[in-house]
Protein backbone atom coordinates (compact mmCIF):
# COMPACT_ATOMS: atom_id res chain seq x y z
CA UNK A 1 0.00 0.00 0.00
CA UNK A 2 2.97 2.29 0.46
CA UNK A 3 3.39 1.67 -3.23
CA UNK A 4 0.06 3.23 -4.10
CA UNK A 5 0.88 6.20 -1.96
CA UNK A 6 4.12 6.76 -3.83
CA UNK A 7 2.25 6.70 -7.10
CA UNK A 8 -0.24 9.28 -5.93
CA UNK A 9 1.11 12.29 -7.83
CA UNK A 10 1.22 10.38 -11.11
CA UNK A 11 -2.22 8.89 -10.66
CA UNK A 12 -3.57 12.27 -9.74
CA UNK A 13 -2.06 13.86 -12.84
CA UNK A 14 -3.51 11.11 -15.02
CA UNK A 15 -6.93 11.58 -13.47
CA UNK A 16 -6.80 15.34 -14.01
CA UNK A 17 -5.76 14.96 -17.64
CA UNK A 18 -8.51 12.41 -18.25
CA UNK A 19 -11.15 14.58 -16.63
CA UNK A 20 -10.08 17.59 -18.67
CA UNK A 21 -10.32 15.58 -21.87
CA UNK A 22 -13.69 14.27 -20.77
CA UNK A 23 -14.88 17.84 -20.44
CA UNK A 24 -13.66 18.71 -23.93
CA UNK A 25 -15.00 15.63 -25.65
CA UNK A 26 -17.81 13.98 -23.71
CA UNK A 27 -17.76 10.66 -25.58
CA UNK A 28 -14.25 10.02 -24.37
CA UNK A 29 -15.13 7.62 -21.57
CA UNK A 30 -17.65 5.48 -23.40
CA UNK A 31 -16.32 1.98 -23.83
CA UNK A 32 -18.37 -0.54 -25.78
CA UNK A 33 -17.78 -3.95 -27.22
CA UNK A 34 -17.63 -4.05 -30.99
CA UNK A 35 -16.71 -7.07 -33.10
CA UNK A 36 -15.89 -8.90 -29.86
CA UNK A 37 -13.37 -6.29 -28.95
CA UNK A 38 -13.35 -3.42 -26.50
CA UNK A 39 -13.88 -0.20 -28.34
CA UNK A 40 -13.62 3.45 -27.38
CA UNK A 41 -11.25 6.35 -27.00
CA UNK A 42 -10.05 5.12 -23.64
CA UNK A 43 -9.09 1.82 -25.25
CA UNK A 44 -7.35 3.76 -28.01
CA UNK A 45 -5.19 5.43 -25.39
CA UNK A 46 -4.23 2.00 -24.08
CA UNK A 47 -3.44 0.73 -27.55
CA UNK A 48 -1.61 3.78 -28.85
CA UNK A 49 0.48 4.09 -25.74
CA UNK A 50 2.00 0.67 -26.37
CA UNK A 51 5.19 1.81 -28.15
CA UNK A 52 5.97 4.59 -25.70
CA UNK A 53 5.03 2.40 -22.75
CA UNK A 54 7.35 -0.35 -23.90
CA UNK A 55 10.16 2.10 -24.55
CA UNK A 56 9.56 3.68 -21.16
CA UNK A 57 10.04 0.32 -19.44
CA UNK A 58 13.53 -0.08 -20.84
CA UNK A 59 14.26 3.62 -20.57
CA UNK A 60 13.42 3.59 -16.87
CA UNK A 61 16.12 1.05 -16.17
CA UNK A 62 18.64 2.83 -18.35
CA UNK A 63 17.92 6.15 -16.70
CA UNK A 64 18.17 4.51 -13.29
CA UNK A 65 21.81 3.75 -14.09
CA UNK A 66 22.30 7.43 -14.90
CA UNK A 67 22.21 6.68 -18.60
CA UNK A 68 19.92 7.58 -21.44
CA UNK A 69 19.00 5.73 -24.60
CA UNK A 70 18.35 7.91 -27.62
CA UNK A 71 18.52 5.01 -30.03
CA UNK A 72 15.23 3.32 -29.17
CA UNK A 73 13.33 4.97 -32.01
CA UNK A 74 15.90 3.81 -34.52
CA UNK A 75 15.96 0.33 -33.03
CA UNK A 76 12.19 0.23 -33.50
CA UNK A 77 12.70 1.07 -37.14
CA UNK A 78 15.35 -1.61 -37.59
CA UNK A 79 13.38 -4.40 -35.96
CA UNK A 80 10.22 -3.30 -37.72
CA UNK A 81 12.01 -3.42 -41.04
CA UNK A 82 13.48 -6.83 -40.38
CA UNK A 83 10.19 -8.20 -39.12
CA UNK A 84 8.36 -6.92 -42.18
CA UNK A 85 10.98 -8.38 -44.49
CA UNK A 86 10.76 -11.76 -42.83
CA UNK A 87 6.96 -11.73 -42.78
CA UNK A 88 6.86 -10.74 -46.43
CA UNK A 89 9.23 -13.63 -47.17
CA UNK A 90 6.72 -15.95 -45.57
CA UNK A 91 8.50 -16.86 -42.35
CA UNK A 92 6.36 -18.02 -39.49
CA UNK A 93 5.51 -15.69 -36.63
CA UNK A 94 7.71 -17.42 -34.01
CA UNK A 95 10.73 -17.08 -36.30
CA UNK A 96 9.96 -13.44 -36.95
CA UNK A 97 9.54 -12.75 -33.26
CA UNK A 98 12.73 -14.55 -32.32
CA UNK A 99 14.85 -12.85 -34.96
CA UNK A 100 13.47 -9.39 -34.26
CA UNK A 101 13.87 -9.68 -30.53
CA UNK A 102 17.37 -11.01 -30.96
CA UNK A 103 18.15 -8.04 -33.15
CA UNK A 104 16.81 -5.63 -30.56
CA UNK A 105 18.95 -7.36 -28.00
CA UNK A 106 22.02 -6.98 -30.21
CA UNK A 107 21.33 -3.27 -30.66
CA UNK A 108 20.94 -2.89 -26.91
CA UNK A 109 24.14 -4.76 -26.26
CA UNK A 110 25.97 -2.57 -28.74
CA UNK A 111 24.86 0.51 -26.81
CA UNK A 112 25.68 -1.19 -23.55
CA UNK A 113 29.18 -2.06 -24.65
CA UNK A 114 29.84 1.51 -25.74
CA UNK A 115 28.57 2.90 -22.46
CA UNK A 116 29.76 0.30 -19.98
CA UNK A 117 33.00 -0.91 -21.48
CA UNK A 118 34.26 1.92 -23.66
CA UNK A 119 32.99 4.48 -21.15
CA UNK A 120 31.44 6.64 -23.84
CA UNK A 121 28.89 9.09 -22.53
CA UNK A 122 25.42 7.58 -22.91
CA UNK A 123 23.88 10.41 -24.93
CA UNK A 124 26.62 10.24 -27.51
CA UNK A 125 26.96 6.48 -27.47
CA UNK A 126 23.29 6.04 -28.23
CA UNK A 127 23.20 9.02 -30.60
CA UNK A 128 25.45 6.96 -32.86
CA UNK A 129 22.87 4.23 -33.21
CA UNK A 130 20.09 6.81 -33.35
CA UNK A 131 21.63 8.27 -36.50
CA UNK A 132 23.03 5.13 -38.08
CA UNK A 133 20.17 2.86 -37.02
CA UNK A 134 17.57 4.64 -39.10
CA UNK A 135 19.92 4.38 -42.03
CA UNK A 136 20.25 0.66 -41.43
CA UNK A 137 16.49 0.31 -41.30
CA UNK A 138 16.15 2.19 -44.58
CA UNK A 139 18.85 0.05 -46.08
CA UNK A 140 16.77 -2.99 -45.21
CA UNK A 141 13.54 -1.61 -46.66
CA UNK A 142 15.16 0.30 -49.47
CA UNK A 143 13.48 3.44 -48.21
CA UNK A 144 9.99 2.30 -49.07
CA UNK A 145 7.15 1.20 -46.85
CA UNK A 146 7.50 -2.53 -46.86
CA UNK A 147 3.98 -3.90 -46.74
CA UNK A 148 2.86 -7.42 -46.05
CA UNK A 149 -0.35 -9.26 -45.65
CA UNK A 150 -0.10 -11.74 -42.86
CA UNK A 151 -3.00 -11.90 -40.43
CA UNK A 152 -0.96 -13.91 -37.93
CA UNK A 153 1.67 -11.21 -37.56
CA UNK A 154 -0.82 -8.37 -37.80
CA UNK A 155 -2.54 -9.93 -34.82
CA UNK A 156 0.18 -8.44 -32.64
CA UNK A 157 -0.92 -4.99 -33.68
CA UNK A 158 -4.65 -5.24 -34.14
CA UNK A 159 -5.75 -8.54 -32.66
CA UNK A 160 -7.49 -9.01 -29.35
CA UNK A 161 -7.64 -11.68 -26.70
CA UNK A 162 -10.81 -11.83 -24.63
CA UNK A 163 -11.75 -8.53 -26.14
CA UNK A 164 -8.59 -6.82 -24.97
CA UNK A 165 -6.40 -5.52 -27.79
CA UNK A 166 -3.02 -7.21 -28.07
CA UNK A 167 -0.88 -4.07 -27.71
CA UNK A 168 -2.42 -3.46 -24.30
CA UNK A 169 -1.71 -7.02 -23.27
CA UNK A 170 1.84 -6.82 -24.53
CA UNK A 171 2.87 -3.70 -22.69
CA UNK A 172 1.10 -4.82 -19.55
CA UNK A 173 2.80 -8.20 -19.73
CA UNK A 174 6.20 -6.69 -20.47
CA UNK A 175 5.82 -4.17 -17.67
CA UNK A 176 4.87 -6.93 -15.30
CA UNK A 177 7.67 -9.21 -16.47
CA UNK A 178 10.40 -6.59 -16.23
CA UNK A 179 8.94 -5.26 -13.00
CA UNK A 180 8.99 -8.69 -11.44
CA UNK A 181 12.43 -9.43 -12.85
CA UNK A 182 14.01 -6.39 -11.26
CA UNK A 183 12.04 -6.36 -8.05
CA UNK A 184 11.91 -10.07 -7.28
CA UNK A 185 15.61 -10.39 -7.94
CA UNK A 186 18.27 -8.05 -6.66
CA UNK A 187 18.66 -6.39 -10.06
CA UNK A 188 16.56 -3.41 -9.04
CA UNK A 189 18.57 -2.69 -5.94
CA UNK A 190 21.88 -3.14 -7.71
CA UNK A 191 20.84 -0.97 -10.65
CA UNK A 192 19.81 1.76 -8.27
CA UNK A 193 23.08 1.47 -6.41
CA UNK A 194 25.06 1.79 -9.62
CA UNK A 195 23.00 4.77 -10.70
CA UNK A 196 23.43 6.57 -7.42
CA UNK A 197 27.10 5.90 -6.86
CA UNK A 198 28.87 3.77 -9.40
CA UNK A 199 32.24 4.03 -7.71
CA UNK A 200 31.00 2.94 -4.34
CA UNK A 201 29.00 0.13 -5.91
CA UNK A 202 31.99 -1.21 -7.75
CA UNK A 203 33.97 -1.15 -4.52
CA UNK A 204 31.49 -3.46 -2.86
CA UNK A 205 31.74 -5.86 -5.75
CA UNK A 206 28.67 -4.88 -7.74
CA UNK A 207 29.30 -5.73 -11.38
CA UNK A 208 28.40 -2.28 -12.58
CA UNK A 209 29.46 -2.81 -16.18
CA UNK A 210 27.41 -5.93 -16.51
CA UNK A 211 24.37 -4.27 -14.98
CA UNK A 212 24.62 -1.25 -17.23
CA UNK A 213 24.96 -3.53 -20.22
CA UNK A 214 21.90 -5.44 -19.07
CA UNK A 215 19.75 -2.33 -18.84
CA UNK A 216 20.61 -1.27 -22.37
CA UNK A 217 19.95 -4.81 -23.54
CA UNK A 218 16.52 -4.75 -21.94
CA UNK A 219 15.90 -1.37 -23.50
CA UNK A 220 16.80 -2.84 -26.88
CA UNK A 221 14.38 -5.70 -26.32
CA UNK A 222 11.59 -3.32 -25.41
CA UNK A 223 12.32 -1.24 -28.48
CA UNK A 224 12.18 -4.37 -30.63
CA UNK A 225 8.77 -5.17 -29.24
CA UNK A 226 7.57 -1.64 -29.83
CA UNK A 227 8.92 -1.81 -33.37
CA UNK A 228 6.98 -4.97 -34.08
CA UNK A 229 3.76 -3.57 -32.70
CA UNK A 230 4.04 -0.47 -34.86
CA UNK A 231 4.84 -2.61 -37.89
CA UNK A 232 2.03 -5.04 -37.26
CA UNK A 233 -0.35 -2.16 -36.67
CA UNK A 234 0.05 -0.66 -40.13
CA UNK A 235 0.82 -3.93 -41.90
CA UNK A 236 4.07 -2.51 -43.04
CA UNK A 237 7.47 -1.21 -42.01
CA UNK A 238 8.01 2.49 -42.40
CA UNK A 239 11.72 2.77 -41.77
CA UNK A 240 11.62 6.50 -42.30
CA UNK A 241 9.11 7.31 -39.64
CA UNK A 242 8.71 4.37 -37.28
CA UNK A 243 9.60 5.54 -33.81
CA UNK A 244 10.75 8.95 -34.99
CA UNK A 245 11.31 11.18 -31.92
CA UNK A 246 9.62 8.58 -29.74
CA UNK A 247 12.70 8.46 -27.53
CA UNK A 248 11.84 11.92 -26.28
CA UNK A 249 8.32 10.82 -25.36
CA UNK A 250 9.72 7.79 -23.56
CA UNK A 251 12.15 9.92 -21.59
CA UNK A 252 9.37 12.31 -20.77
CA UNK A 253 7.23 9.43 -19.56
CA UNK A 254 10.00 8.29 -17.26
CA UNK A 255 10.48 11.78 -15.90
CA UNK A 256 6.77 12.33 -15.35
CA UNK A 257 6.90 9.01 -13.55
CA UNK A 258 9.26 10.61 -11.10
CA UNK A 259 12.49 8.77 -11.89
CA UNK A 260 15.34 11.23 -11.70
CA UNK A 261 17.51 11.71 -14.76
CA UNK A 262 20.42 11.76 -12.33
CA UNK A 263 19.90 8.05 -11.81
CA UNK A 264 18.94 6.03 -8.80
CA UNK A 265 15.53 5.12 -7.52
CA UNK A 266 13.04 4.16 -10.19
CA UNK A 267 9.54 2.86 -10.62
CA UNK A 268 8.41 1.11 -13.76
CA UNK A 269 4.76 1.44 -12.81
CA UNK A 270 5.13 5.18 -12.45
CA UNK A 271 6.82 5.41 -15.84
CA UNK A 272 3.94 3.48 -17.38
CA UNK A 273 1.50 5.93 -15.84
CA UNK A 274 3.68 8.71 -17.22
CA UNK A 275 3.36 7.17 -20.67
CA UNK A 276 -0.40 6.95 -20.25
CA UNK A 277 -0.54 10.62 -19.30
CA UNK A 278 1.33 11.59 -22.46
CA UNK A 279 -0.81 9.41 -24.68
CA UNK A 280 -4.04 10.56 -23.06
CA UNK A 281 -2.88 14.07 -23.83
CA UNK A 282 -2.14 13.17 -27.46
CA UNK A 283 -5.47 11.47 -27.93
CA UNK A 284 -7.22 14.30 -26.15
CA UNK A 285 -5.67 16.82 -28.51
CA UNK A 286 -6.84 14.76 -31.47
CA UNK A 287 -10.35 14.58 -30.06
CA UNK A 288 -10.49 18.26 -29.28
CA UNK A 289 -10.79 19.38 -32.87
CA UNK A 290 -8.35 22.25 -32.37
CA UNK A 291 -6.15 23.12 -35.32
CA UNK A 292 -2.85 21.24 -35.35
CA UNK A 293 -0.83 24.43 -34.90
CA UNK A 294 -1.86 24.29 -31.24
CA UNK A 295 -0.76 20.70 -30.60
CA UNK A 296 2.71 21.47 -29.33
CA UNK A 297 1.69 24.43 -27.22
CA UNK A 298 -1.07 22.50 -25.49
CA UNK A 299 1.23 19.58 -24.87
CA UNK A 300 3.97 21.80 -23.49
CA UNK A 301 1.66 23.71 -21.20
CA UNK A 302 0.05 20.60 -19.73
CA UNK A 303 3.40 18.90 -19.21
CA UNK A 304 4.84 21.94 -17.51
CA UNK A 305 1.78 22.13 -15.30
CA UNK A 306 2.05 18.47 -14.32
CA UNK A 307 5.75 18.63 -13.64
CA UNK A 308 5.35 21.83 -11.67
CA UNK A 309 2.80 20.24 -9.40
CA UNK A 310 5.04 17.22 -8.98
CA UNK A 311 8.25 19.13 -8.43
CA UNK A 312 9.91 18.67 -5.06
CA UNK A 313 10.01 22.43 -4.55
CA UNK A 314 6.26 22.79 -4.89
CA UNK A 315 5.70 19.66 -2.81
CA UNK A 316 7.79 21.20 -0.02
CA UNK A 317 5.84 24.44 -0.18
CA UNK A 318 2.57 22.57 -0.12
CA UNK A 319 3.53 20.50 2.89
CA UNK A 320 4.66 23.61 4.72
CA UNK A 321 1.37 25.25 3.83
CA UNK A 322 -0.56 22.22 4.97
CA UNK A 323 1.36 22.19 8.24
CA UNK A 324 0.59 25.86 8.80
CA UNK A 325 -3.07 25.35 8.11
CA UNK A 326 -3.18 22.44 10.48
CA UNK A 327 -1.45 24.44 13.19
CA UNK A 328 -3.83 27.31 12.65
CA UNK A 329 -6.75 24.93 12.81
CA UNK A 330 -5.44 23.52 16.05
CA UNK A 331 -5.03 26.95 17.59
CA UNK A 332 -8.43 28.28 16.76
Amino acid at each position, binding site marked *: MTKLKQLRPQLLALAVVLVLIGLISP*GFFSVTVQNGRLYGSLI*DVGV*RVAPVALLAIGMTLVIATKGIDLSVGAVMAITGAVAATLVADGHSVPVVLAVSLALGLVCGIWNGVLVAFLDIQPIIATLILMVAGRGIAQLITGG*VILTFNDPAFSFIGSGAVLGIPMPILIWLAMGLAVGLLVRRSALGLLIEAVGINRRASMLVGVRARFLILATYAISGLCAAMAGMIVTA*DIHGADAN*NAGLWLELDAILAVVIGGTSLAGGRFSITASLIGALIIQALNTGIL*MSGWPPEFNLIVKAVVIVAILTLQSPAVADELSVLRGMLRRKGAKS
Partner: protein
Amino acid sequence: DLTVGFSQIGSESGWRAAETTVTQQQAKERGIDLKFADAQQKQENQIKAVRGFIAQGVDAILIAPVVATGWDEVLGEAKEAEIPVILLDRQIDAPDDLYLTAVTSDQVFEGKVAGEWLVKDVGDKACKVVELQGTTGSSPAINRKKGFEEAIAGKSNITIARSQTGDFTRTKGKEVMESFIKAENGGKDICAVYAHNDDMAVGAIQAIKEAGLKPGTDIKVVSIDAVPDIFLAMQAGEANATVELTPNMAGPAFDVLEKFKADGTLPPKWIQTESKLFTQADDPKGVYESKKDLGY
Protein backbone atom coordinates in the same frame (compact mmCIF):
# COMPACT_ATOMS: atom_id res chain seq x y z
CA ASP B 1 29.85 13.60 -70.27
CA LEU B 2 28.06 15.56 -67.61
CA THR B 3 28.58 15.54 -63.89
CA VAL B 4 25.43 16.63 -62.11
CA GLY B 5 25.00 17.21 -58.42
CA PHE B 6 21.62 16.32 -56.94
CA SER B 7 20.62 17.71 -53.58
CA GLN B 8 17.74 15.62 -52.33
CA ILE B 9 15.70 16.55 -49.25
CA GLY B 10 15.92 13.21 -47.55
CA SER B 11 14.08 9.95 -47.55
CA GLU B 12 11.04 10.73 -45.47
CA SER B 13 8.55 8.85 -47.63
CA GLY B 14 8.19 6.18 -50.24
CA TRP B 15 7.47 8.79 -52.87
CA ARG B 16 10.73 10.55 -52.08
CA ALA B 17 12.63 7.27 -52.35
CA ALA B 18 11.04 6.68 -55.73
CA GLU B 19 12.06 10.12 -56.93
CA THR B 20 15.64 9.37 -55.94
CA THR B 21 15.57 6.01 -57.67
CA VAL B 22 14.06 7.42 -60.84
CA THR B 23 16.57 10.25 -60.90
CA GLN B 24 19.42 7.80 -60.59
CA GLN B 25 17.95 5.59 -63.31
CA GLN B 26 17.50 8.54 -65.64
CA ALA B 27 21.06 9.68 -65.04
CA LYS B 28 22.38 6.23 -65.73
CA GLU B 29 20.43 5.90 -68.96
CA ARG B 30 21.90 9.12 -70.21
CA GLY B 31 25.43 8.43 -69.02
CA ILE B 32 25.32 11.28 -66.56
CA ASP B 33 27.58 11.06 -63.51
CA LEU B 34 25.18 11.86 -60.66
CA LYS B 35 26.57 13.16 -57.38
CA PHE B 36 23.91 12.53 -54.78
CA ALA B 37 23.61 14.34 -51.47
CA ASP B 38 20.92 13.63 -48.94
CA ALA B 39 20.05 16.60 -46.73
CA GLN B 40 18.29 14.71 -43.96
CA GLN B 41 15.35 17.11 -44.15
CA LYS B 42 17.49 20.15 -43.43
CA GLN B 43 17.79 23.17 -45.63
CA GLU B 44 21.17 24.05 -44.22
CA ASN B 45 22.44 20.68 -45.38
CA GLN B 46 21.08 21.38 -48.84
CA ILE B 47 22.88 24.68 -48.95
CA LYS B 48 26.06 22.99 -47.80
CA ALA B 49 25.62 20.38 -50.49
CA VAL B 50 25.13 22.98 -53.20
CA ARG B 51 28.22 24.83 -52.03
CA GLY B 52 30.08 21.53 -52.09
CA PHE B 53 28.96 20.90 -55.65
CA ILE B 54 30.11 24.35 -56.66
CA ALA B 55 33.48 23.79 -55.04
CA GLN B 56 33.81 20.53 -56.94
CA GLY B 57 32.93 22.24 -60.20
CA VAL B 58 30.01 20.09 -61.33
CA ASP B 59 28.31 20.84 -64.66
CA ALA B 60 24.81 21.28 -63.29
CA ILE B 61 22.91 21.05 -60.03
CA LEU B 62 19.49 19.59 -59.32
CA ILE B 63 17.79 20.68 -56.13
CA ALA B 64 14.63 19.32 -54.62
CA PRO B 65 14.22 22.25 -52.22
CA VAL B 66 12.95 21.45 -48.75
CA VAL B 67 11.43 24.90 -48.44
CA ALA B 68 10.70 27.73 -50.84
CA THR B 69 12.72 30.45 -49.20
CA GLY B 70 16.36 31.10 -48.59
CA TRP B 71 17.98 30.19 -51.87
CA ASP B 72 19.02 33.53 -53.30
CA GLU B 73 22.53 33.59 -51.97
CA VAL B 74 23.68 30.11 -52.76
CA LEU B 75 22.01 30.12 -56.17
CA GLY B 76 23.78 33.41 -56.78
CA GLU B 77 27.04 31.64 -56.11
CA ALA B 78 26.11 28.90 -58.54
CA LYS B 79 25.27 31.49 -61.13
CA GLU B 80 28.57 33.22 -60.58
CA ALA B 81 30.29 29.88 -61.12
CA GLU B 82 28.15 29.47 -64.26
CA ILE B 83 26.59 26.24 -63.11
CA PRO B 84 22.97 25.87 -64.22
CA VAL B 85 20.49 24.90 -61.50
CA ILE B 86 17.25 23.01 -62.01
CA LEU B 87 14.64 22.78 -59.30
CA LEU B 88 12.70 19.59 -58.81
CA ASP B 89 9.19 19.16 -57.44
CA ARG B 90 9.00 22.49 -55.65
CA GLN B 91 9.08 26.13 -56.65
CA ILE B 92 11.12 28.64 -54.72
CA ASP B 93 10.80 32.31 -53.79
CA ALA B 94 13.73 33.67 -55.75
CA PRO B 95 14.31 35.67 -58.89
CA ASP B 96 13.93 33.27 -61.77
CA ASP B 97 17.21 34.22 -63.38
CA LEU B 98 18.91 32.26 -60.63
CA TYR B 99 17.83 28.93 -62.03
CA LEU B 100 17.40 27.39 -65.42
CA THR B 101 14.00 25.93 -64.84
CA ALA B 102 11.78 24.25 -62.31
CA VAL B 103 10.23 20.87 -62.98
CA THR B 104 7.36 20.63 -60.54
CA SER B 105 3.78 19.80 -60.11
CA ASP B 106 1.36 22.40 -58.85
CA GLN B 107 0.58 21.42 -55.30
CA VAL B 108 -2.42 23.69 -55.02
CA PHE B 109 -3.72 22.20 -58.20
CA GLU B 110 -3.27 18.69 -56.82
CA GLY B 111 -5.48 19.55 -53.89
CA LYS B 112 -7.94 21.10 -56.25
CA VAL B 113 -8.12 17.99 -58.43
CA ALA B 114 -8.82 15.89 -55.35
CA GLY B 115 -11.48 18.36 -54.20
CA GLU B 116 -13.13 18.54 -57.59
CA TRP B 117 -13.35 14.78 -57.75
CA LEU B 118 -15.16 14.78 -54.43
CA VAL B 119 -17.50 17.58 -55.47
CA LYS B 120 -18.46 15.65 -58.52
CA ASP B 121 -18.73 12.38 -56.69
CA VAL B 122 -21.06 13.49 -53.91
CA GLY B 123 -23.22 15.71 -56.05
CA ASP B 124 -25.75 17.50 -53.90
CA LYS B 125 -25.69 15.14 -50.95
CA ALA B 126 -24.50 16.59 -47.67
CA CYS B 127 -20.98 15.45 -46.96
CA LYS B 128 -18.82 15.87 -43.87
CA VAL B 129 -15.17 15.55 -44.78
CA VAL B 130 -12.32 14.87 -42.40
CA GLU B 131 -8.89 15.97 -43.47
CA LEU B 132 -5.54 14.37 -42.69
CA GLN B 133 -3.00 17.13 -43.09
CA GLY B 134 0.64 16.69 -43.84
CA THR B 135 3.34 17.85 -41.48
CA THR B 136 2.33 21.17 -39.99
CA GLY B 137 4.12 23.95 -41.80
CA SER B 138 5.34 21.91 -44.76
CA SER B 139 4.51 23.37 -48.15
CA PRO B 140 2.58 20.35 -49.52
CA ALA B 141 0.39 20.42 -46.43
CA ILE B 142 -0.33 24.10 -46.83
CA ASN B 143 -0.88 23.99 -50.58
CA ARG B 144 -2.86 20.79 -50.80
CA LYS B 145 -5.15 22.06 -48.08
CA LYS B 146 -5.57 25.32 -49.94
CA GLY B 147 -6.34 23.66 -53.27
CA PHE B 148 -8.90 21.35 -51.75
CA GLU B 149 -10.61 24.21 -49.97
CA GLU B 150 -10.73 26.17 -53.20
CA ALA B 151 -12.43 23.27 -54.94
CA ILE B 152 -15.14 22.86 -52.34
CA ALA B 153 -15.64 26.57 -51.81
CA GLY B 154 -19.19 27.50 -52.57
CA LYS B 155 -20.42 23.97 -52.10
CA SER B 156 -22.41 24.34 -48.93
CA ASN B 157 -23.18 20.62 -48.81
CA ILE B 158 -19.49 19.76 -48.33
CA THR B 159 -17.86 20.79 -45.10
CA ILE B 160 -14.54 19.95 -43.49
CA ALA B 161 -15.58 18.71 -40.09
CA ARG B 162 -12.19 17.95 -38.66
CA SER B 163 -8.66 18.56 -39.74
CA GLN B 164 -5.57 17.30 -37.96
CA THR B 165 -2.00 16.58 -38.90
CA GLY B 166 -1.01 13.00 -39.59
CA ASP B 167 2.60 13.95 -40.30
CA PHE B 168 2.45 12.25 -43.70
CA THR B 169 2.86 8.87 -41.99
CA ARG B 170 0.75 5.74 -41.90
CA THR B 171 0.89 5.32 -38.16
CA LYS B 172 -0.25 8.83 -37.44
CA GLY B 173 -2.80 8.70 -40.22
CA LYS B 174 -4.32 5.66 -38.60
CA GLU B 175 -4.22 7.11 -35.10
CA VAL B 176 -5.79 10.39 -36.15
CA MET B 177 -8.46 8.64 -38.17
CA GLU B 178 -9.31 6.47 -35.18
CA SER B 179 -9.94 9.54 -33.10
CA PHE B 180 -11.94 11.21 -35.90
CA ILE B 181 -14.17 8.18 -36.06
CA LYS B 182 -14.75 8.21 -32.32
CA ALA B 183 -15.36 11.94 -32.32
CA GLU B 184 -17.83 11.77 -35.22
CA ASN B 185 -20.39 9.35 -33.92
CA GLY B 186 -18.48 6.17 -34.58
CA GLY B 187 -17.67 7.33 -38.08
CA LYS B 188 -21.28 7.30 -39.18
CA ASP B 189 -21.24 11.04 -39.71
CA ILE B 190 -18.15 11.00 -41.87
CA CYS B 191 -18.75 10.84 -45.59
CA ALA B 192 -15.20 11.17 -46.86
CA VAL B 193 -11.62 11.45 -45.79
CA TYR B 194 -9.15 13.62 -47.66
CA ALA B 195 -5.53 12.76 -46.97
CA HIS B 196 -2.63 14.93 -48.09
CA ASN B 197 -0.75 11.83 -49.06
CA ASP B 198 -1.47 8.19 -49.79
CA ASP B 199 0.43 6.83 -46.81
CA MET B 200 -1.92 8.55 -44.40
CA ALA B 201 -4.84 7.36 -46.50
CA VAL B 202 -3.67 3.76 -46.18
CA GLY B 203 -3.47 4.19 -42.41
CA ALA B 204 -6.92 5.76 -42.38
CA ILE B 205 -8.34 2.86 -44.39
CA GLN B 206 -7.10 0.44 -41.75
CA ALA B 207 -8.66 2.53 -39.01
CA ILE B 208 -11.96 2.60 -40.86
CA LYS B 209 -11.92 -1.15 -41.30
CA GLU B 210 -11.09 -1.77 -37.67
CA ALA B 211 -14.03 0.42 -36.68
CA GLY B 212 -16.28 -1.95 -38.59
CA LEU B 213 -16.96 0.37 -41.50
CA LYS B 214 -16.25 -0.08 -45.17
CA PRO B 215 -13.66 2.29 -46.59
CA GLY B 216 -14.47 3.37 -50.10
CA THR B 217 -18.16 2.85 -49.49
CA ASP B 218 -19.16 4.05 -46.04
CA ILE B 219 -16.38 6.56 -46.03
CA LYS B 220 -14.86 7.67 -49.29
CA VAL B 221 -11.09 7.99 -49.46
CA VAL B 222 -9.33 10.50 -51.65
CA SER B 223 -5.65 11.30 -51.46
CA ILE B 224 -2.60 12.50 -53.37
CA ASP B 225 0.68 11.00 -54.65
CA ALA B 226 -0.43 7.79 -56.39
CA VAL B 227 2.00 5.44 -54.70
CA PRO B 228 1.59 1.76 -55.58
CA ASP B 229 -0.07 0.74 -52.33
CA ILE B 230 -3.04 3.01 -52.85
CA PHE B 231 -3.79 1.20 -56.10
CA LEU B 232 -4.01 -2.08 -54.23
CA ALA B 233 -6.53 -0.44 -51.95
CA MET B 234 -8.41 0.94 -54.94
CA GLN B 235 -8.48 -2.44 -56.50
CA ALA B 236 -10.03 -3.80 -53.31
CA GLY B 237 -12.55 -1.00 -53.46
CA GLU B 238 -11.19 0.59 -50.30
CA ALA B 239 -9.87 3.80 -51.79
CA ASN B 240 -11.64 5.95 -54.31
CA ALA B 241 -9.29 8.39 -55.92
CA THR B 242 -5.73 9.61 -55.92
CA VAL B 243 -3.93 12.39 -57.72
CA GLU B 244 -0.62 11.46 -59.21
CA LEU B 245 2.56 13.24 -58.34
CA THR B 246 5.07 11.76 -60.70
CA PRO B 247 8.44 10.78 -59.26
CA ASN B 248 9.99 11.34 -62.65
CA MET B 249 10.99 14.97 -62.34
CA ALA B 250 14.54 14.26 -63.39
CA GLY B 251 13.63 13.02 -66.87
CA PRO B 252 12.33 16.35 -68.16
CA ALA B 253 15.08 18.10 -66.20
CA PHE B 254 17.82 16.15 -67.92
CA ASP B 255 16.12 16.68 -71.29
CA VAL B 256 16.28 20.44 -71.01
CA LEU B 257 19.70 20.32 -69.47
CA GLU B 258 21.11 18.31 -72.35
CA LYS B 259 19.55 20.72 -74.84
CA PHE B 260 20.88 23.68 -72.92
CA LYS B 261 24.37 22.22 -72.83
CA ALA B 262 24.26 21.31 -76.49
CA ASP B 263 23.17 24.61 -77.98
CA GLY B 264 22.17 26.91 -75.17
CA THR B 265 18.44 26.45 -75.67
CA LEU B 266 16.70 28.11 -72.78
CA PRO B 267 13.76 26.12 -71.48
CA PRO B 268 10.61 27.73 -70.06
CA LYS B 269 10.94 28.72 -66.41
CA TRP B 270 8.37 26.21 -65.28
CA ILE B 271 7.86 22.73 -66.57
CA GLN B 272 4.70 21.57 -64.95
CA THR B 273 4.21 17.86 -64.52
CA GLU B 274 0.83 16.37 -64.91
CA SER B 275 -1.44 15.97 -61.87
CA LYS B 276 -3.41 13.04 -63.14
CA LEU B 277 -6.46 11.76 -61.33
CA PHE B 278 -6.80 8.03 -60.87
CA THR B 279 -10.02 6.39 -59.77
CA GLN B 280 -11.16 2.83 -59.34
CA ALA B 281 -12.14 2.91 -63.03
CA ASP B 282 -8.54 3.38 -64.15
CA ASP B 283 -7.29 -0.19 -63.94
CA PRO B 284 -5.68 0.05 -60.52
CA LYS B 285 -4.14 -3.38 -60.91
CA GLY B 286 -2.35 -2.40 -64.08
CA VAL B 287 -1.09 0.87 -62.64
CA TYR B 288 0.14 -0.98 -59.56
CA GLU B 289 2.13 -3.40 -61.68
CA SER B 290 3.68 -0.59 -63.67
CA LYS B 291 4.67 1.34 -60.56
CA LYS B 292 5.71 -1.28 -58.11
CA ASP B 293 9.31 -1.51 -59.26
CA LEU B 294 9.99 2.20 -59.37
CA GLY B 295 11.48 2.22 -55.88
CA TYR B 296 8.45 3.55 -54.02
